[in-house]
């Protein structure tokens, strides 16, 4: 019963925050409305959420977010440097295959997203059975290093969060 | 303030969605609802016509906002007549559509039909220029749906052309409205009438442009030269009841010209100096010529009928272009007449063409069932369309000619109308003779030995219900002729009311006009 009303409690919470962000004003009225919507919208959209993503270690999420944010900033400087200062013929782009241990779709998505947002790499595609990611490096001399980096820095953490 | 004024819009607007989503799997129910709605609409329109007969221009302020700021509906004799005409036509067409099963050949016929009525009624009632645009679009988009009802290659291609042409027209409509608003700062027709008249002559360019653009927009709907091209293709390929219903669509354009270019851009407006009339007249004459020549030269029945509609629009617009109360009154009589005669012919053509192996090709073939009946009906319809007595077309033509006697364009108008009539008569005679007479000369090719068995493909005789609408339309033409006096008196009063633009302004703006 509770599950029918609250199909996704985490989602409801997120939505409350989203609403308050949208209204950009926290007042009691808004909050009540936010809660009502936070219940109603998951209820309405429940059919499109067949499963509940499970987050086992919420605290790790925070750590992960900060790491990624930091990496994004670094990545920006790196890419900017490459764009601005490296001559085109000196840029050595590479394709790298990253085999995955993750199986949760959410985790894979987050990993792929992270790869895209971080230093010089873009996740171009998954394999048909989602067991590997094809990554494009803007400039690297060491493809294996990139792959190991990804596996160690992100995949491992995601595995802890989601599985 | 009587709320009945808005009933012709709200009734179909509410009925249509109910038909669309409650009854869309049950054609019987939809038919019943559609009939009930149309009959109710006709009753309301009769009531409104009677109410408007008093001569009072009634305005209805939607949302209770005072006149130039909100949208108003205006009921006067002219709009009442147009409403009545619409509802009568709708009833006739609906019977035909149901009796011939056209409505079941695609989805949502009745919903679209009701929406179409809503759009037409709204366009006739509105007293706001932009709202006129909106209702034009409502009736157009419904007509798109009806036009392609049932599908088929040629119909879709013709429908595509129809839509494209009208979209271009709608775009121009917006340009025109924009210019008008930019020049006057208002959208209410009565307010526009006042503002345009008050405009200093040295500031005429924008309003003149707007007036001409609007005229072209309406001319597209009214199928006037040089924007009449879309009509034959559309009417020829539309489903027959829809083509018959479209008989009113060209009249919407004509109505808009009559309304807007009399009330707002009338001949008494200093900045325009009678510009619309000057240009409308040659356009109307050429339109008439094109229509008449088309009738004479048509190779197929449906284009022939379509061109006769073009011709009738030309005839009518000649009178409109004179912009005098007498001529407008004559034009209105002819408008009513040509609507029903076009409807009668298209409905009849449907009955005939669907029973012929050669379709609407003007070619002799073995006489089909009920050749005599159809021939008689065609004869009557042709008489009506060509403007021969005893049906109302002749009177309409006489009225127009009579009204044109006092105008400077008398000679050319006389020549155009009379020569046009001749070509139309000859064209119809040719077509009727080929279709109905010549076929009787065809010998049966050879008797099929197995002719005893009834051929399931053989055309069936038309039932009473299928012929009733055509009869009704023709009967209305006869009635229109017989009661020409009272009808014409009403229309005379209507055009008198129309040309009294200060009366219109006062009725709409009332005392607020000072504010």
């Amino acid at each position, binding site marked *: 019963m509770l599950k029918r009303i609250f199909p996704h409690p985490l989602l409801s919470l997120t939505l409350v925050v989203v609403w308050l962000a949208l209204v950009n004003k926290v007042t009691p009225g808004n909050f009540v409305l936010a809660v009502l919507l936070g219940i109603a919208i998951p209820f309405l959209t429940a059919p499109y959420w067949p499963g509940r993503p499970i987050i086992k270690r919420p605290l790790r999420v925070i750590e992960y977010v900060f790491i990624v944010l930091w990496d*994004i900033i670094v990545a920006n400087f790196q*890419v*900017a440097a490459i764009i601005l200062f490296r001559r085109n013929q000196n840029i050595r782009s590479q394709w790298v*295959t990253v085999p995955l241990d993750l199986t949760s779709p959410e985790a894979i998505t987050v990993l792929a997203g992270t790869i895209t947002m971080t230093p010089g790499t873009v996740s*171009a*595609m998954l394999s*048909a*059975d989602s067991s590997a990611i094809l990554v494009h490096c803007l400039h690297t001399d060491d493809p294996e290093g990139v792959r190991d980096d990804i596996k160690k820095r992100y995949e491992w953490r995601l595995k802890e969060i989601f599985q | 303030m009587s709320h009945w004024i808005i009933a012709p819009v709200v009734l179909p607007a509410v009925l249509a969605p109910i038909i669309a989503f409650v009854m869309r799997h049950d054609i019987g129910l939809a038919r019943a609802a559609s009939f009930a709605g149309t009959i109710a609409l006709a009753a309301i329109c009769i009531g409104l016509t009677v109410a408007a007969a008093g001569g009072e221009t009634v305005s209805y302020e939607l949302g209770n906002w005072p006149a130039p700021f909100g949208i108003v509906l205006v009921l006067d004799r002219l709009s009442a007549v147009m409403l009545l005409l619409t509802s009568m036509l709708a009833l006739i067409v609906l019977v035909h559509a149901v009796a011939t099963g056209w409505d079941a050949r695609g989805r949502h016929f009745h919903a679209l039909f009701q929406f179409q009525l809503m759009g037409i009624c709204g366009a006739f009632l509105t007293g706001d220029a932009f709202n006129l645009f909106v209702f034009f679009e409502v009736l157009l988009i419904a007509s798109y749906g009806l036009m392609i009802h049932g599908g088929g290659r040629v119909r879709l291609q013709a429908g595509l052309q129809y839509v494209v042409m009208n979209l271009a027209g709608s775009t121009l409509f917006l340009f025109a409205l924009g210019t008008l608003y930019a020049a006057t700062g208002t959208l209410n027709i009565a307010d526009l009438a006042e503002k345009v008249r008050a405009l200093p002559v040295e500031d005429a360019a924008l309003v003149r442009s707007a007036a001409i653009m609007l005229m072209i927009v309406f001319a597209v709907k009214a199928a006037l030269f040089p924007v009449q091209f879309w009509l034959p293709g559309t009417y020829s390929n539309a489903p027959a009841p829809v083509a018959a219903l479209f008989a009113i669509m060209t009249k919407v354009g004509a109505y808009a010209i009559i309304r807007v270019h009399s009330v707002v851009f009338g001949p008494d407006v200093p900045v325009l100096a009678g510009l619309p009339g000057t240009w409308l007249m040659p356009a109307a004459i050429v339109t008439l010529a094109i229509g008449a020549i088309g009738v004479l030269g048509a190779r197929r029945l449906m284009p022939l009928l379509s061109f006769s509609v073009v011709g009738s629009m030309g005839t009518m617009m000649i009178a409109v272009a004179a912009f005098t109360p007498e001529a407008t009154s004559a034009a209105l009589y002819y408008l009513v007449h040509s609507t029903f005669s076009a409807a009668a012919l298209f409905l009849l053509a449907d009955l005939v063409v669907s029973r012929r192996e050669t379709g609407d090709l003007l070619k002799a073939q073995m006489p089909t069932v009920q050749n005599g009946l159809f021939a008689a009906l065609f004869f009557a319809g042709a008489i009506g369309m060509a403007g021969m007595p005893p049906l109302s077309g002749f009177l309409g033509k006489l009225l127009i000619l009579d009204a044109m006697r006092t105008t400077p364009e008398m000679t050319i108008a006389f020549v155009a109308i009379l020569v046009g009539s001749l070509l139309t008569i000859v064209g119809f005679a040719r077509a009727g003779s080929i279709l109905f007479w010549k076929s009787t000369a065809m010998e049966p090719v050879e008797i099929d030995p197995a002719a005893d068995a009834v051929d399931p493909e053989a055309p069936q005789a038309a039932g009473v219900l299928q012929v009733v609408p055509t009869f009704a339309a023709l009967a209305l033409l006869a009635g229109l002729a017989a009661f020409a006096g009272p009808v014409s008196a009403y229309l005379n009063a209507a055009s008198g009311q129309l040309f009294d633009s200060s009366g219109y302004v006062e009725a709409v703006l009332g005392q607020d006009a000072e504010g």
Partner: protein
Amino acid sequence: MELVTEILISFFLVVAGVFGLVGSLGMVKLKDTMQRLHAPTKATTVGVGGVLVASMLYFLLVKGTFSFHELLITLFLFLTAPISANFIAKTFIQGHLRAENLPASEGEYGWSIYDDPPTVDETTEENA
């Protein structure tokens, strides 16, 4: 205080501007489509991010109203940018590269645009 605020906000704005420009410059400068893909997905996200931070700070510190709805845009962008990039990359690969040009997936299945996904035992291909 005011000066600090101004410097802070200006800093974010300038950084955002620089990265935004660099991202778009990459679009022009880099010679290969896959390379160009890197530029905007990273640089401009920080560009927009910088602007958003500046905006939040501006409303908070200058206007005195607490504003955090900029976060929503950030959320959207972070959620969508990788997907967009992923799609654009696939678009490019499909048009220009063949499976032989890419490294192997090292699994049983090839890359998703060349190879059908594993069929699950239930019938997945039927009309709903």
